[in-house]
């Protein structure tokens, strides 16, 4: 289970909409609890691909290291990454699977014709053979 506060979900949707036709990607910081992963912050990252950005994204090793460093500095855990699928369903592609890491949550947002639609989250199975969908719950926070 991955718990996404409204604010983070909204940030992901906004990023997916703004980057439309290209894939947006970003990092999820938070904490692991007995119940699962609890996202506290979703931060956009730069899609470092210089070609095929409509269907591919990459976070460079240097950016990844910065994200790890940011997590340790703020006492958070790197929980995973999100990315958008422009005009493509919110399911991992074969390419996603090849490049997947264990433990991480891969949150995928489908953006249909510029409008953010479904969001789903996946984790790599233990034997790396497939993605397993995990339940993605949005946390409602009422205004103070």
């Amino acid at each position, binding site marked *: 289970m991955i718990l996404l506060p409204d604010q983070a979900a909204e940030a992901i949707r906004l990023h997916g909409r703004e980057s439309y036709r290209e894939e947006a990607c970003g990092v999820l910081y938070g904490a692991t609890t007995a119940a699962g992963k609890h996202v506290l912050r979703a931060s956009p990252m730069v899609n470092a691909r210089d070609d*095929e950005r409509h269907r591919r*994204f*990459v*976070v460079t090793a240097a950016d990844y290291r910065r994200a790890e460093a940011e997590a340790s500095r703020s006492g958070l855990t790197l929980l995973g990454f999100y990315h958008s699928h422009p005009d493509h369903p919110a399911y991992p592609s074969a390419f996603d699977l090849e490049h997947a*890491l264990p*433990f991480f949550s891969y949150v995928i947002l489908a953006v249909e014709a510029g409008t953010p639609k479904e969001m789903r989250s996946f984790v790599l199975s233990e034997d790396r053979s497939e993605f397993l969908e995990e339940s993605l719950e949005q946390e409602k926070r009422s205004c103070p």
Partner: protein
Amino acid sequence: MPVKVLIPTPLRPFTDQKETVEIEGALVRDLLDNLTDRYRDLRKHLFDDSGKLRSFVNVYVNEDDIRSLDRFDTRVSEKDVVSIVPSIAGGAGSPAVVEGEVTFSREEIQRYSRHLIMPEVGMEGQAKLKSASVLMVGAGGLGAPLGMYLAAAGIGRLGIVDFDVVDASNLQRQVTFSAADVGRPKLQATKDRLSGINPHIEIEGHETRLSSENALALFRDYDVIVDGTDNFPTRYLVNDACVLSGKPNVYGSIFRFEGQVSVFDARRGPCYRCLYPEPPPPGLVPSCAEGGVLGVLPGIVGSLQALEVLKLVLGRGEPMIGRLLVFDALQMKFRELRQRKDPDCPICGERPRIRELIDYEEFCGIPQAREVERKMGVPTITVEGLKELVDERADVFVLDVREQHEWNIVRLEGATLIPLGRLPHEVNKLDSAKDIVVYCRSGARSAKATQFLLDAGFQKVRNLEGGILAWADRIDPSLPKY
């Protein structure tokens, strides 16, 4: 002398949650070997099956990628920090996604997205649907939901066999057609409608009556055959042609308030003949035209057939092979009857006697029945003849032998209603001295009534040829037809 190795978050579950581990080794190669020896589960995430470092796994010595140093031969010492750094990559397929040989445009991806997001269908399943070919026999009540749903779901090639013309009485249930289609060939109207629903598929029309001569050739080019016919000769023909050509037959039938659905695939289960070896005698089971059918019923049965087609094509779920679903709309009950393959089945049994298509009209006794009807030879009168009598104000007793609800729809002026079933009880109401003209909807029931009256001793009794339908056609077009 141990070297510090930094483990990235996703791999920490394999290093007892340690962020840093100390490993012995003089070269990066030794270090990684020793690391994965100690933490065995790490190996599959760092290296692929051939033992190569995965493309998204980077190894840094201090601030430098080993690719810019001596790669795996890079020397390390206790002063160095080695980091394993994944790069995060991913992405959708291309907009024109290639799944095997099948490609999808962006519009198609959007159209089929509710399929694509289901793992049970997905791109793979949608590609199967797109490469599939389905032949619908009949574009009537069952063909309407069948055609529309199969087209919408993305069956790549949809064949339709029909030679009928849209009649106003079709509109009560054949929802493919609009009022403006009355008089048009059903095939043409259906093609227009289906290509409007999904322009990405191929629709092939066969404007012909399915026959023993053309069935095998027609079926050859399709993966699945769907039986949407309304008569026994064609039903046996579809069954036999499917058995002989080894195709699944998605069967549906409707009558009044009842429907049946099954999948006959002689390779995997029983065929229609295992279930019904012999057709009923002609006239015993009325057609929808004679017995009526509730408007929504073909929508349900045809939709169930469409579902079975999708399941067969996708190879998902349990197809209705060996099961007959009987739906009773009045009770709103679905019953399932188990069907076994009949070892003595004349076509799919152990010793098949039927090895080629036969004459199905003959098999179903249709010509024989016509002959009997002709021999019955009751005296008849044409509608023009009756009109003359009426105009002359001749003393003629016009007897309607239809049912009360048909009488309520339309009747001939001055007629008297005695439904066929009541005739033996009410025959005493008739005056044998008078001229009697008997009519029903099309002339069949009234022929029986005429025969009955002749047998009962009436002499001046005649059957109205073509019934009230002929009257509406040729005498009074203002009358409704049903």
